[in-house]
């Protein structure tokens, strides 16, 4: 599936991976209203095909997908030395999945359906960590 980029000027770029189109579209729209640019992928392999260090400011990924899972992807990125913050979003509520995500370095492991302000908070912290968060970026789209 062709990846889709929604770009606001001067905005950081978030990568979104989910095999479910509806979920991808929903996240993409949410990021848009938050003033964040994003690029969506339907599977880990598609993301890896475009991956370059520092290309994305943050990765939001589903866990269970055809092919490589979100957690395997995270492990792979760590092996590649990526410091890109990863937010894992999953329908799987098991403690094992959560533990594996967090111990693998995920910034957060959120359960679907995700609350927008919770996601926003984690995104802010992710973008701050990469040093990308600026006041003008933060204030404009947020309803906080």
């Amino acid at each position: 599936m062709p990846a889709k980029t929604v770009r606001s000027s001067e905005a950081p770029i978030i990568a979104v991976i989910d095999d479910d189109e509806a979920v991808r579209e929903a996240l993409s729209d949410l990021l848009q209203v938050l003033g964040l640019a994003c690029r969506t992928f339907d599977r880990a392999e598609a993301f890896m095909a475009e991956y370059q260090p520092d290309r994305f400011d943050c990765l939001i990924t589903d866990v269970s997908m055809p092919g490589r899972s979100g957690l395997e992807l995270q492990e792979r990125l760590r092996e590649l030395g990526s410091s890109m913050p990863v937010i894992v979003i999953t329908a799987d509520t098991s403690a094992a999945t959560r533990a594996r995500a967090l111990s693998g370095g995920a910034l957060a492991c959120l359960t679907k359906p995700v609350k927008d302000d919770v996601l926003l908070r984690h995104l802010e912290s992710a973008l701050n960590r990469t040093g990308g968060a600026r006041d003008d970026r933060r204030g404009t789209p947020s309803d906080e």
Partner: protein
Amino acid sequence: MIDGVRRQMSNFSRRAATNGEEPAFACPLVADLSDLTSESIIVSDVHGVIRYWNPASEALYGWPAMAMIGQHVQTIGSLAHAGTDHFSALLREGRWEGVVHRRGLSGTNVVAAVRQIVRRDSAGDLLDIVEFGRDAGSLSRASYLRMDAELQSSLAASWELDTSAARPLLDAIAEHRRSGIAIDFDQHPDWVDRMLSVTRILAVNDRAVRMFGAHAGYEQMIGKSIDAFWPAESRSLLATLLESVASDRTRLEARKMVLSGSLREPVIKAWHSAEPKPPDTVFVTINGIANDDRTTWELQASEDRYRRLIQYLPTALWQVDSRRAGEAFDQLKAAGVRDIAAHLERNPDLVEHAKDVVRVTDVNRDAVSLFRAGNLADLIKPVRYIFSAAPGLAERVMVAHFEGRRNFIAETRIRAFDGSIVDVLFTVTYPVPPEQLDNTFITMQDISERLNAEQQLRKLQADFSHAGRIATLGELATSIAHEINQPLAAIVTNGETSLRWLARADPNTEKITQLTSRIVSNARRASDIIHRIRGMAAKHEPEKRLIDLNEVVEEALLFIRHDIDSKSIVLSANFGSELPKVMGDRIQLQQVIINLLVNSVQAIVQSGQPTRRIDAQTSIDDEGSVVFSVLDNGPGVPAEDLEHIFDSFFSTKDTGIGIGLAICQSIITAHGGRITGLNRPNGGAHFHFTLPALTVASPEPSSVASSTRA
């Protein structure tokens, strides 16, 4: 008169019954009493030698006892008695009555009305013959013929008939005769029908009841129209005789008749009764020689045995006289009718008519209880009641009869007399010449228990497969939750995004509209998924419809897709194009597909195989059946287990209870298909099932002459 005959007959039978206990009839024993009677009494032995001759005999014939004892009876016999050979009839029947002509002492002809009785010892050996006689010489020839007929009527099947209601018809016919027109009843079936239907039975003797009443019994015959009982092959003969004796009250008609049955050369006699019987009372007798050499009581015993056999046969049995239908068929055939089914469809009244003219002549006890009837006689009537709960059955029975088939078999229903409906296996056996054509047999077997058992089995299978589905849904709970959670997650996020747009000073209505329609479509998607899960979880009777197997496979994948994804299994689904549709229960087939896929997933995961693959395919095989296959690269099935995998409670899994594949097999078998499991040459298992495609004409359930389900 016949009442008198009936009394005599019962007296005779009483005597016969006690005969064994009485001392042997020594000639002089009762001689003192017999000497005093006014009736001639002659006793002769086995060889016909006269052993006793009483004074009244001396008076009647003129010969003294002294001269006659030790003589052969033929010494005085002319035995010029018309009709049957009375001596053999006497031995056969045990008794004989009639008018005899004897030679008197002076060479005169003595006419005597005699009653002869054969006496036997307890072993059945002939003891002697006792004859009671009285003078009949004073009678006119016509009178003694009538007397002879009356006397012999006790041996014949005798009827006392009331023809008064036929009087207008008889008068009309008489009018024809007067105008010189020859009357041939064969040419006037309508007259015959009318005459017989208005002629009522006043009395019948035991023999008539036995020969013609079937099981109707004396009481059921009295007052009824003779039409219902008279043999079909001699209806116009009876009409002829009735008309003849009704028009001339002095006449005694005697004719040979055609009668299928146990009588050889049957003779029918009819005469008008004398006073004090009401006018228009006619007596009819049928007599003949029994069709084999057995004596009456052997025949009787044989008949009784046969009756008992029939009566206690553990199958409901009807004996039906369908000759009237047979005659109608002959006429139709003569008229060129070939396709009887089409003809009956155009003329439904023929079927209705047949239901009235084809009569039940006998039934057994099981038939009575099957129809919840009070007694046998309730079932002895036209066959109409048999067909009351089975529309179209009578037509099919007639078609089979017309086409000259030997048997007809159908599963059908009857309405018992208490209104309840009973499922029966219904068979008809048609008579084929030289069998007696009035013997069509119908048997019925109550199969409601069998059908109930089948119904229960179906319910059990439905429960069983339902339990299997619930278990599978449990196993797939995570996968299913994921499937529902995806659209819900999208809805939540879409909603929150919309709210953020709405909170702005310049809401992007275009965007909000887009988001709202996404909410709607995702909600619908979630609802669809729940609907499908409910379908899987619900208990339902299997319902076969035309379905596209590819669609069923796609729907099944919904339940397990996430499970496959989460276990990093690569699933490739190949759907054959232009598959013919199949008849099937969507939910049950989904269940089978899910079950096979779950088995593959579990086997692959257990095997620790690094690359995990499942191929699901649909296709058409060489026979045109639709096929679903699942191939995996798991460990396969151990060779020694292959033949047990479809057995109930056989499992190779630690946690399995072993009903999954057993359910799959019962479902596929119920769909007329086959399910097979085998190992792939290069490792892994290959399960597939076939379903008969609808485009292939399914063969008729049975090729038995006329076997069809009602």
